[in-house]
């Protein structure tokens, strides 16, 4: 028996977006930006966000206009079943690769920093099993869980910022453009698919109390997440200098490691692992769930929860192919972003064109 139908509201969505995207402030993404942009690594995400804003708003506009259930239905509706499915598959593959690469990074990070003697595969298995368990509970539970865990995460973020601020030197943010304006803009463009989850989340367009709640949650959540990311990247720049920031892979942990809290707490970095791990469990739970949902919606599979297991294990096996973390981060992840970004940047405009063409034909 259910007393409340579709009880999720904007706050659950905000929490989910926060977990899904805001947490990129704490993974290996900053080192991807810092590779060339150096101490301007905090400007690049702003550029990326500005770049994805027009296609994203277009997509939201189309969803509102056609009142379809979700992204897959919109694709089918505007482009026809065949073309829509093909574009959908492109989106799916892009998201899938990005998830696999991200997951490998996180697992390597856990492995390297906290369990250096364990085989990666064991940690990977534990990680995936946990995500699967949670994902199986369904979207509403995930949303509620995200909201329930949010206080812990926010507390962690605030304390990390507090700790890191003691080690910051604000002048390190200069020279303001870091590696150079052209590099920052190029990076911002080519890595804009760091935010591809925004597009994917539209699969849940009708899953919330009403679509207005979805829109509110989506915009607030994305702005908050981008703010968080930018703030974190700024802190990394100010804690490390431009020459060090692009050498360090795990900026989040290293930045907390260098600051002692008084005499008693000298190594506090593991303490911040709590919020970090919780949010990463949730991040990949959500990611996995929406990817399976997209796949299910594309091929009209109603009970797509059954896909969670095969898709997650496929992602695991694929992501174990790169021989080490550096290859995965700097080659696989970076190249895949270069290829995925154009797809995600263009498809909303393709949809818009199809929509305009349809209207014209009607007249």
């Amino acid at each position, binding site marked *: 028996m259910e007393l409340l139908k579709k009880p999720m509201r904007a706050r659950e969505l905000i929490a989910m977006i926060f977990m899904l995207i805001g947490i990129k402030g704490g993974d290996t993404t900053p080192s991807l930006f810092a590779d060339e942009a150096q101490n301007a690594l905090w400007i690049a995400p702003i550029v990326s966000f500005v770049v994805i804003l027009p296609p994203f708003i277009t997509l939201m506009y189309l969803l509102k206009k056609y009142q379809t259930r979700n992204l897959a239905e919109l694709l089918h509706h505007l482009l026809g079943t065949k073309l829509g499915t093909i574009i959908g598959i492109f989106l799916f593959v892009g998201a899938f690769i990005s998830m696999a690469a991200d997951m490998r990074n996180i697992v390597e990070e856990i492995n390297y920093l906290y369990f250096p003697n364990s085989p990666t595969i064991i940690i990977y298995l534990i990680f995936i099993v946990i995500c699967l368990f949670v994902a199986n509970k369904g979207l509403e539970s995930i949303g509620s869980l995200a909201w329930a865990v949010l206080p812990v995460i926010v507390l962690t973020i605030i304390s990390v910022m507090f700790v890191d601020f003691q080690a910051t030197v604000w*002048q*390190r943010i200069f*020279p303001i453009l870091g590696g150079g304006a052209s590099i920052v803009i190029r990076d911002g463009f080519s890595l804009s698919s760091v935010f591809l989850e925004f597009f994917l989340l539209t699969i849940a367009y009708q899953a919330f109390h009403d679509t207005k709640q979805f829109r509110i949650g989506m915009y607030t959540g994305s702005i908050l997440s981008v703010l968080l990311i930018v703030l974190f990247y700024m802190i990394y720049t100010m804690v490390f200098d431009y020459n060090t920031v692009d050498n360090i892979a795990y900026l989040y942990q290293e930045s907390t490691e260098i*600051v002692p809290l008084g005499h008693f707490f000298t190594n506090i970095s593991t303490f911040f692992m709590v919020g970090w791990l919780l949010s990463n469990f949730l991040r990949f739970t959500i990611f996995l769930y929406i990817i399976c949902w997209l796949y299910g919606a594309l091929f009209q599979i109603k009970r797509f929860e059954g896909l969670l297991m095969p898709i997650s294990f496929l992602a695991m096996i694929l992501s174990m192919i790169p021989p080490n973390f550096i290859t995965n981060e700097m080659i696989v992840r970076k190249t895949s972003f270069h290829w995925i970004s154009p797809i995600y940047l263009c498809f909303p405009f393709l949809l818009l064109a199809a929509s305009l063409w349809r209207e014209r034909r009607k007249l």
Partner: protein
Amino acid sequence: MKKIIVILFLIFLPALLGGCFDQKELEEQAFVVSIGVDKTDTRGVFRFSFQIANPEVGSSATGTSTKEPAQAVISVLGSDFLTATNAANATVAKEITLNQARVVIISEKLARSKEFIHLMQSAPSTVDLKLNAQLVVSKENAETFIRNNKPRLESRPHKYYQYMLDRAKETGIIPDAPLVRFFQITEGDADLFIAPYATTIRDDETEIGEEDHYKAGEIPVKGESQTQFMGSAVFREGQMISTLTGEENRFCLMFDSTLAQKDILISFNDPLMKEYQVAGRLDINNVKVKVDYKKEKQTTINVFVDFNINIHAIPSTVDYIQSLEKQRILKNSIEKQIKNRGERFINKTQEKFKAEPFYWSLHIRHKFLDIKQYEKADWMNKIYPNAQVRLHFNLEGLEFGKMLRETDIEEVRD
């Protein structure tokens, strides 16, 4: 359901019995509190000394105390921190963990060699070694330093380093030098890095001079503890080039806006009775560095230091407290004296080091748009050595502690 429980239990049980890959029982580990590194004759091989704390000493308030020593020092050869740790395990039954090490001691000999930077490159990738550990340069071999170090008042060796470094830092005679700062400054390649300078061997030949003009080993102290932390070692591009005295180190702290400004004890010549000195506590309120960068011409650096002084000893018994006129004289004199000393030191950095240890490169950065331009301008080699540095000291407040007037000694003698 029953089956699931049984299966789950069976999965758990071996895991519980064996523990997992990274599981280490607490008592199986030996905690290193300090690491010493020395140069050997072979290139690329160093002598590592690990000081290991014995948890059984000084832990329990009641019960039997053990006769084991509080610490053990082990020296092994190795090419980097990790291999040395493994080698040390050949003699220690417990597994050696570095993650509690708070101090890394480098011998002066090693620091002055070119190999030092290669050794340091291996530090960040050693998971165990935390980047907030302090770097200390010892005058003698690091091994000797660690072995000579016998704290009298602290039963735990780590406490000793902690207190010792903190006290010295508070008085401003040594700088704060975590490993990460070494990397930031060395990789930034624009400034000099300074690390605390210490020794356990006393240099008997020095005489009593002005109290801060010592380096480690020169302080005439009598007592059982041999260790002295005083002054700092100067690193240029990852190689030690010189040392600074305690007083010079204070100027470094004063001019560097990234280091915590602690109050400093300092003494000056009494302007009215030259043979006496005035001592006080100096609080720095505000430091501003303004760099006037001109691309082709000489750059001017203006440094504004606002400070307070709390005078607590006037041995000459001149009545500064009640006479405003005399206070004005004292104020001017202090500003002048401190400026002279500062300028002397700045000259030394410009001429001898050809670079500054104040992290001033930060203040020129905002003049550039991107890193390429900034690096091309070359703060370390081109701008600073030729720049004109102007120091502006401003004594904002003069206080005399809790005394209302000086005792008239003449009257006492009566």
